[in-house]
Structures are given as structure tokens and as C-alpha cells.
């Protein structure tokens, strides 16, 4: 069994600066700049609270129809991200358990480390981040 260590939980927002202020009120402090992830058509940032819970805020570009549609439907919990040693090894495990790889990429938000999104048949979206 692979150890799925939770790194963060991501929320969608229409306005990242506004949501940062809201999260501040809940005890979450900004711990990153706001990154422009052009390839994924989103702006993102990370916040952490005193219990060491880490949130990501994700603001889709206007051209990101899929995420805009999710927000319009009222869905803001977007994905859970896990730290793993190897994306390849975890990919095999996840495929055996019915997950599909959406994409794999290097992310500026994680110092250029490799990340991958997977989705299950019941549309549970997860992100893997290589340690």
C-alpha cells in the first residue's frame, strides 16, 4: 500500500485575493506568492493554519470553461493533493484501482517538481506531487 500523505486541499474561487482575506479570517496565513499557471489556465496560492492544514486556492482564467462551470454549479472543493515518492509507481497502483491519469506536468508552484492529476470513475479528483 502506497502512503498517500496529504499535502493540501484545493478550493476553487472566482477571486483569489478576496478568498485570501476570507481564509485569513479563519486563521489561514498566505505562505506563497500567487502563481500564474498559464498552462493550466489558473492562478493559485497556498495558505496554512496553526494545525498545519494547507489549503490551495485556485482561480480559473475566464477561458478555463471546465473550472468556471464547476464554480457556477456551486462546487468549490476541487481536489486533494498527495505527496508521493514516485509518480510512476503510484500511477500503476491508481490505474489498478480504477483511476485515470488526466495529465502530468512540472509545476512552478512546487519548485518545478512533477505533478499529475488523476480522476476516478466517481469523479474524485486528486493530484500527486513528487517529493
Amino acid at each position, binding site marked *: 500500500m502506497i502512503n498517500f500523505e496529504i499535502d493540501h486541499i484545493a478550493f476553487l474561487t472566482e477571486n483569489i485575493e478576496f478568498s485570501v482575506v476570507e481564509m485569513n479570517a479563519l486563521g489561514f496565513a498566505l505562505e506563497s506568492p500567487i502563481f500564474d499557471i498559464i498552462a493550466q489556465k489558473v492562478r493559485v496560492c497556498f495558505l496554512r493554519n496553526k494545525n498545519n492544514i494547507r489549503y490551495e486556492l485556485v482561480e480559473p482564467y475566464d477561458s478555463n470553461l471546465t473550472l468556471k462551470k464547476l464554480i457556477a454549479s456551486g462546487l468549490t472543493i476541487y481536489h486533494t493533493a498527495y505527496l508521493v515518492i514516485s509518480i510512476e509507481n503510484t500511477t500503476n497502483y491508481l*490505474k489498478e484501482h480504477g483511476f485515470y491519469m*488526466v495529465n502530468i506536468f512540472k509545476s512552478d508552484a512546487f519548485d518545478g517538481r512533477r505533478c499529475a492529476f488523476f480522476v476516478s470513475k466517481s469523479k474524485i479528483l486528486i493530484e500527486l506531487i513528487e517529493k
Partner: protein
Amino acid sequence: MKAQIEDFRKILSEVLEREIHSINITDTPKDIDGWDSLNHIYIIIKLENIYNVKFSTSQIQNWSCINDIISDINTLI
């Protein structure tokens, strides 16, 4: 029953949650607004459920247009 482009158009409309009025067999995801990498997987899952097939990774990687997808479905059913 063989998969046809009209069946695929209906499935695409359902996944993208908007009416796609016409598609061509040569269309690629880039030709259809909203057909991004996540919706691509939702299309695959829907096709596998409807046609009771399982696409291999290499099949999926070799798809370049709608015709490739329909062709693989018809090979598998």
C-alpha cells in the same frame, strides 16, 4: 451496434453540458470548446460504460481525432 459519429456527438454534448450541434470525424479536442484534459477523461469513462469496453493506454495515447476514438470503440465491441 457499431458506434457512429452521431452517438459520439450526443455523448460529447452530455459531458460538456451543452449542445454540440455538429462535429466532424477529423475534429480534435482543440476544435471543440471545453474539451480539455479533464473532460477528455470523462468522455473516456462514459464511452467505456456505454459500450462496455476498456481502452488501453496506448489506444488513448494514439487518438488524434474523433475518428480514431470511434474506430477503437468499434474494434473493441
